[in-house]
């Protein structure tokens, strides 16, 4: 629906976008016993790691091939080999997830060839999966890197011709979903008697649990053996358009049909997902889910008053944008400004007049008279300068607790989102009333 425009500026001011390798390595965080590694100079890893630590408030086991000026000239194969051997010796990971950066890709290195050679030379690596995603940082953004990594995970690991398991279903999870979202999705799928293989499953590794020991890889997440068995599933549900390519790979290899769910936030969107689970499982919708649907209906009835005709400025990666803009317009709000990071087929599905590929400065210029600003944490200062309420969504969220546990899918997630954003509108309206009456210190009425 939306027309896509590019920012007219040459200089990016207050970036919205984070890098492809960071997105790719984040996807590898969703595999169990994994060590994500950037094939790049060490600083790339340090920045990426620090940002993830600040977002999740968890230790992040990233590594680097530590390229320098000389190895950039001579080629990165030796560094790659040394890094893989060092990591294996120290941490014995089940998977090493390798994401390249611009330095490596601009040199046109044949990493697949390098990996083949390294394997031949080192039979001791036999038990370790080496999965490489091409993620140059001069192209795309976080979401593109995530999608590229998931695509190579299935390309490298899914095995053909294993037969069918009538209870097994694949869930490919886009980067717009939080650990809390994945937990909700798993519970829902299991409520229909289906066994989901969620890839990647950051709910297993990044849900903020306290373990009894310290390991140097990821702890929890999708098992490599489960990925190998994904060809046995009855269907693949691709959550987010970014997951469509990976779903196609599984279909082509194992004849597993796929369905794409561009959004899971909102009544009708989740209805659609629930109906699919009922269809695939052949089971009726459980009473507890019906009850939650009813709660959401009530929340929409109570909450819509505060959303109608509200003007929203939002900046988010494409698939998150689809879900949030859909949710807001479902309740009668209108989108004044929508900014995103990179081009994507998802943008065509954003219910707004236009979407700009740009930065937080583009958002700031267009958001002057809006009622609400939505973006990742860097938008807080934009909202502050404009003096409008702010809602945090996306990555990174470094200035609030609980990023992993923000739920926005399903009946429950949508219900809570109505309350959370609706309360921001109510608070702003009250504030306005009191200002108008000259009673700044007057107590805020409770609703």
């Amino acid at each position, binding site marked *: 629906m939306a027309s896509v425009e590019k920012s007219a500026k040459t200089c990016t001011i207050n970036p919205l976008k984070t890098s*492809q390798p960071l997105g790719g390595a984040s996807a590898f965080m969703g595999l169990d016993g994994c060590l994500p590694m950037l094939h790049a100079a060490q600083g790339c890893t340090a*920045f990426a790691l620090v940002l993830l630590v600040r977002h999740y408030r968890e230790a992040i086991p990233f590594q680097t091939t530590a390229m320098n000026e000389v190895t950039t000239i001579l080629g990165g194969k030796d560094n790659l080999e040394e890094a893989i051997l060092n990591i294996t010796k120290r941490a014995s990971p089940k998977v090493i997830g390798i994401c390249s950066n611009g330095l490596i890709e601009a040199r046109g290195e044949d990493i697949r060839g390098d990996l083949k050679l390294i394997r031949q030379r080192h039979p001791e690596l036999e038990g370790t999966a080496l999965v490489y995603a091409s993620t140059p940082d001069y192209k795309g953004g976080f979401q593109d890197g995530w999608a590229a990594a998931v695509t190579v995970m299935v390309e490298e690991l899914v095995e053909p011709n294993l037969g069918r398991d009538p209870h097994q279903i694949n869930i490919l999870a886009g980067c717009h979903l939080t650990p809390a979202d994945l937990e909700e999705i798993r519970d829902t799928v299991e409520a229909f008697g289906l066994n989901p293989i969620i890839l990647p499953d950051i709910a297993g590794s990044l849900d903020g649990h306290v373990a009894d020991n310290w390991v140097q890889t990821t702890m929890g997440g999708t098992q490599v053996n489960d990925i190998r068995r994904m060809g046995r599933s009855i269907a693949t549900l691709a959550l987010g358009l970014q997951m469509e390519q990976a779903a196609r790979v599984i279909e082509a290899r194992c004849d597993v049909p796929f369905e794409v769910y561009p959004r899971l936030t909102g009544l009708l969107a989740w209805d659609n997902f629930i109906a699919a689970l009922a269809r695939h499982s052949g089971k009726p919708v459980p009473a507890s889910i019906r009850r939650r649907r009813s709660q959401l209906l009530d929340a929409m009835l109570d909450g819509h008053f505060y959303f109608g005709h509200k003007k929203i400025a939002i900046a988010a990666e494409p698939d998150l944008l689809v879900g949030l803009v859909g949710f807001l317009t479902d309740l009668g709000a209108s989108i004044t400004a929508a900014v995103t990071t990179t081009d994507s087929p998802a943008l065509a599905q954003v219910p707004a007049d236009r979407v700009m590929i740009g930065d937080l400065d583009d958002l700031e210029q267009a958001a002057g008279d809006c009622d609400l600003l939505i973006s990742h944490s860097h938008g807080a200062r934009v909202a502050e300068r404009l003096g409008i309420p702010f809602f945090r969504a996306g990555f990174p969220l470094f200035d609030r607790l609980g990023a992993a546990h923000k739920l926005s899918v399903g009946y429950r997630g949508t219900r809570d989102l109505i309350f959370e954003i609706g309360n921001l509108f109510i608070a702003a309206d009250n504030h306005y009333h009191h200002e108008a009456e000259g009673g700044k210190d007057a107590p805020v009425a409770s609703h």
Partner: protein
Amino acid sequence: MSQHKHQDLFNEPACAKNRDKDETARKKGCGGKSLTPGNAAGGCAFDGAKIVLQPITDAAHLVHGPIACEGNSWDSRHALSSGPQLYRTGFTTDISELDVIYGGEKRLFRAIKEIATRYSPPVIFVYQTCVTAMIGDDIETVCKVATERFGLPVIPVNAPGFVGKKNFGTKLAGEVLLNHVIGTEEPETTTPTDINLLGEYNVSGDLWAVTPLFQRLGIRLLTSITGDARYHQVTKAHRARVNMMVCSQALINVARKMEERWGIPYFEGSFYGVEATGTSLRTIAKILVERGAEAVLVDRTEALIAAEEARVATELAPILADLKGKKVLLYTGVVKSWSMISALHYAGMIVIGSSTRKATKEDKARAAALMGDEGETIDNLPQRDMYRMLKNREADIMLSGGRTQFVALKAMTPWLDSNQERHNAYAGYDGTITLLRAIHKELTNPVWTQVRTPAPWEA
């Protein structure tokens, strides 16, 4: 590429660590051992350069490179400003695949033009990064042309990440200040008590915890390099009477060359802890008097130190009993490893270990002497060993940076941030009070007994 230019910087006669090396080791560069692929952590030269220059608050800092360099890192430090906020704006050329093929110089020039037109900053710093360095973008020439065209200094910072570690980037940024900024303008007035602080970035307001002390002593902080600095202050730094390097040898090239060029003596000191703060103030006063300030400055300094030490003792008295004998694991960078030890000893705490992985021999010896038999210096502590130590309750609290935070927390051990991401100022007398109160608050939080209680069905 830029290797030959760097050789000069690898030979730093004033740097103790550098002096200790033989000829071959020196050629390999600074920042310790070369990095091991698959077993490395820490920031790059670009990161280091930005740490030094970004606190210049009225400057525009433009990063020429792909989105990773700025998009993943912007506005993430707590170097505070008392005025301008432009330094917190993230500017980057965010180069595309086409730029990689055809070169990014035109894009860079246009980006500079947009910033100059829209913001008219007193200066634009342009940072080179790995990819744009590799494709051969000549940022020096672009900056030169832009300087002429737009009538404001556009300064190249040639410290792409792959030339070395963070420490090396700070030195490269120091060279940028020496070659393009310091000494380019004259102050309107000078006084016999003008000083500079080098390597103080006003993290969480550290600088503001010591500036009131200078004011009370009648000492003028001519330039802070670069915490809460304005560009036109840094240009005039060459007229100070003394340079104090705060807590680090990172800018020793700047200190030494300022001494060579303008005869400004320098010393290394710290504002962490009561003792170190006193020593630093005494040294400043002594050098200023030697260089022509009124002799009474020394007496004023002694009086202030006595009054402040008494105040600190009174304010901390209520919590000292709780802190006494508590064991601390200190895992932090460089000189802080010894300066923090004395701050902790003040409260009768026992430092069982202190990391000295980036420290010089002298710093290491200093830390070892301070800890005596109670603790040891640690060059490298793998996270699983750190976890085991903490899980065995060998320390009551760990002070470290954000990266190792979760090792402590997952081991159910109290933790306090002592690095640049922290939110409290720990410098000076007020900072010492803040630090010890923060440790006390953390140690006495009731949460520890709860989280260490096993679930009833597991007991």
